[in-house]
């Protein structure tokens, strides 16, 4: 009995070491959960004969905590805009110069000189979107393109609002509503913001990430939301309208980057170049429901996606604002307001 167990353990141990020794022809992708199209990966695997593994994280911060220690074993990560800036600063990303790769010509020029990676020496666009709110047009019939619906709601929306449980999304929307600058350390302005949020909170029902569930179960009639989630919620509740507030709104972009000292760096570069083909970008969009920033990908995308008002911004909407990470002092002040609001 004892011997049997021992041999079993030894056999198992052997299989693991065997599995990990052959590193050639592999690529380890670390991406947000439910965000990678398995068909796109299959296409890449077939084209280059590389075996790809996909693991998922739930936040930029989890990913950072893990790769910061080194030796995580991943090659590709897909951080958000501000996280790319942080990771470049910390020296966690490999300077692979995607701007010299053959498919870089497909990248929309407006996504090249971005604050988080000027000139694109480290990363390429993966998916981008906006953070606004979506509202049931049969409940509220007026103009939806104003932040007042969240911070000073009309009677029919009072107590029917869900906000994202995200400090930056809530505070930046509040600052825009008051017409104050982002990354704000002006105490008087922040005090006003604090009072405004505390007052607005009495009209909110919940602060939660599960936007789609809240909306489709008719738990709320308005929810702060990422555009992709708003589109998916509209499928089950056609009355929903996605707002592009005149006061402005946040844009975000997730980017494909290569970790410093990645074990399969050449394969990672191949993957990056592949991700800039219109076909691959469209496959990702069709799966993840966001726009991709690659020119020529539209013809390969589902018409349901290219005709969605949540994905294709109307010409009248203001340009999305990409908010860089604020100074520590500002973040500390924000955290105080946020804690206070969550009491």
């Amino acid at each position, binding site marked *: 009995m004892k011997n049997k167990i021992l041999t079993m353990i030894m056999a198992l141990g052997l299989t693991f070491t065997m599995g990990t020794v052959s590193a050639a022809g592999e690529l380890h992708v670390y991406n947000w*959960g439910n965000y990678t199209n398995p068909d796109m990966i299959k296409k890449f695997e077939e084209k280059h004969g590389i075996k790809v593994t996909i693991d*998922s994280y739930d936040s930029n911060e989890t990913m950072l*905590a893990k790769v910061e220690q080194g*030796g995580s074993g991943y090659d590709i990560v897909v951080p958000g805009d501000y996280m790319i800036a942080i990771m470049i600063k910390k020296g966690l990303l490999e300077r692979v110069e995607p701007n010299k790769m053959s498919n870089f010509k497909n990248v929309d020029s407006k996504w090249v000189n971005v604050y988080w990676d000027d000139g694109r020496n480290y990363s390429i666009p993966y998916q981008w979107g906006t953070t606004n709110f979506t509202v049931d047009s049969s409940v509220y019939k007026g103009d939806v393109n104003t932040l007042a619906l969240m911070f000073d709601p009309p009677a029919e929306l009072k107590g029917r609002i869900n906000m994202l449980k995200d400090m930056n999304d809530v505070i930046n929307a509040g600052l825009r509503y008051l017409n104050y600058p982002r990354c704000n350390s002006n105490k008087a302005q922040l005090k006003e913001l604090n009072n405004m949020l505390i007052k607005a909170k009495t009209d909110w029902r919940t602060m939660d990430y*599960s*936007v789609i569930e809240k909306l489709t179960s008719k738990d709320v009639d308005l929810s702060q939301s990422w555009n*992709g989630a708003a589109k998916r919620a509209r499928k*089950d509740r056609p009355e929903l309208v996605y707002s592009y507030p005149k006061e402005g709104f946040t844009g975000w972009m997730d980017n494909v980057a290569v970790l410093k000292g990645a074990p399969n760096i050449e394969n990672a570069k191949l993957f990056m170049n592949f991700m800039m083909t219109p076909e691959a970008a469209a496959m990702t969009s069709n799966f993840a429901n966001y726009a991709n920033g690659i020119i020529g990908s539209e013809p390969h995308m589902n018409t349901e996606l290219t005709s969605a008002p949540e994905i294709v911004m109307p010409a009248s909407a203001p340009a999305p604002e990409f908010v860089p990470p604020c100074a520590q002092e500002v973040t500390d002040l924000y955290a105080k307001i946020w804690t206070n609001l969550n009491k």
Partner: protein
Amino acid sequence: MTKTTDLRYQPGFSLITWFCIAFLYAPIAVLVWFSFNQNRSVTVWTEFSLDWYVKAWHNEGIQNAALVSLEVAVIAMILSTIMATMAALVTTRTAPYRGLNLSVAVINQPLMVPEVVTAVATLIFFAIIKQATGVTGIGYLIAAHTAFCIPFAYMPIRARLEDMDLSLEQAGADLYAPPFKVFRRITLPLMMPGILAGAMLAFIVSLDDVIITLFVAGPGETTLPIYILGQIRRGVTPEINAVSTVFLGISVILVTFIFLFGKGKNLGKQ
């Protein structure tokens, strides 16, 4: 004797009991219920279907995660139970020695230290080893799981040993049975229910660990709880309900099996 003077009569207790049972199991019932939902919402019911089971079955991400979960849980269970059994023997079947209490405290350390502290410490420790040796693989994850499973396996085994009368073992020794034979023929069979309970517990604890796994798991080592966690930002689908239901079923079968097995042993003794 009237009802009110009966000490066993506890007014309102059955109500509280039902409330507690509902509190504990109603969410699980809802989860199972919506795994059979036809549409993609986990809150609005339309009609019965098995679509999500079929989808989950064909979802490679879920397949891989489920296999990793089972692989890690089974190996961590075996290793931690063996170590916990040895630890339980050495902390109950010996004369008191210096450092006995310290040993018990060290064994139970994973229960005392907040999990996130263990997780970060393990992450850093393993990162150093990985960079120094270049060895990677699922072994790290299994080692981490084994470590925090030990106290869970240890507790029931130790409890069982403390309940067991020494006289049978002494009688065996009196009849010139060598120590190993006493262990093999008397101690081990008697402590088997404790070992099984400990193994069970270790398996379950390993299966649903999130924090330590989140930090330690390397490429291709996403377990099912980590996979589910990763879905949250993009919205949970009933696929997750379906997988959870299957795993719930496995747990129930396992518990039933161990319960019946333990019962059979006890009956044999009487």
